């Protein structure tokens, strides 16, 4: 049995509260990625693999997990400063992904430091798809 594209699944969710903003952002990145890669569909599995990948670029920030922990529904901690970080998953912290400018700022900063380059629209879409799949 084939699985429906994740996007269709997400669009079937009630669009209420902040989850709607994350879903809207996901759609935006998916559309952007489709321009570079026709037929692109976001993948939560790819997003999870990306989230857990140890890029080895920064001595302390080895991966997203270095600060956001293995479980993005749990609070994180900045690996250098020790400061507490609210959970990354919108299901655990409603305001996540609600401000597109803020999202872009943190993708720019964190991808540069952790991945060593800017993240592509496809990677951002997969990333949000993964976080949205972490049900609360």
């Amino acid at each position: 049995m084939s699985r429906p594209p994740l996007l269709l699944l997400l669009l079937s969710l009630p669009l209420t509260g902040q989850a709607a903003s994350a879903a809207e952002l996901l759609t935006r990145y998916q559309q952007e990625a489709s321009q570079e890669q026709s037929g692109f569909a976001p993948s939560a599995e790819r997003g999870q693999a990306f989230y857990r990948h140890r890029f080895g670029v920064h001595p302390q920030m080895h991966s997203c997990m270095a600060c956001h922990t293995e479980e993005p529904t749990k609070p994180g901690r900045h690996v250098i400063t020790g400061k507490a970080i609210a959970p990354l998953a919108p299901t655990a912290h409603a305001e996540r992904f609600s401000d597109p400018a803020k999202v872009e700022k943190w993708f720019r900063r964190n991808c540069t430091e952790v991945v060593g380059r800017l993240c592509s629209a496809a990677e951002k879409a997969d990333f949000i798809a993964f976080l949205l799949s972490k049900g609360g």
Partner: protein
Amino acid sequence: MRSWWIALALVPVVGWAATAPQADEAALYREECGSCHLAFPAGFLTAAEWQRVLDRLDRHYGSDASLEETKRQTLLAYVRRTASNGAEELPGARNPAEPLPRLTHKPWFIHEHRKVAAFQQHPEVRTLVNCAACHTRAAEGSFREREIVLPGGRRWED
């Protein structure tokens, strides 16, 4: 006579309008400078030390914290207004060739934390500039001894 009452009624309005930009500056400071570490009370550094920090956001203690110029200018105005008066400025603070100022090099900071240096090894602390690890009201700018709770829940007793 009535004009006096109107003028009086306008005082709080004008007062509010005059302080609104200052409130915006403070809010911007907390938002932009409080994501990765506590938004340190601006009085912890002198104006000259703040100028160094804000001129080198691209090399911010190992990270790139660069900001749009309009925001950087707002933050400069804020720290100039709220910085300390310079009595304990670090030597070399005004020399661009010197490393950026560090709280952990400030004599007053070293003195206040002389008995707790070992806590830097604690996984919830990691560094002495993780103020909120022990200073329960650090986010409100308060660092009183009676508010300190060490990792593990023990109150500070000197």
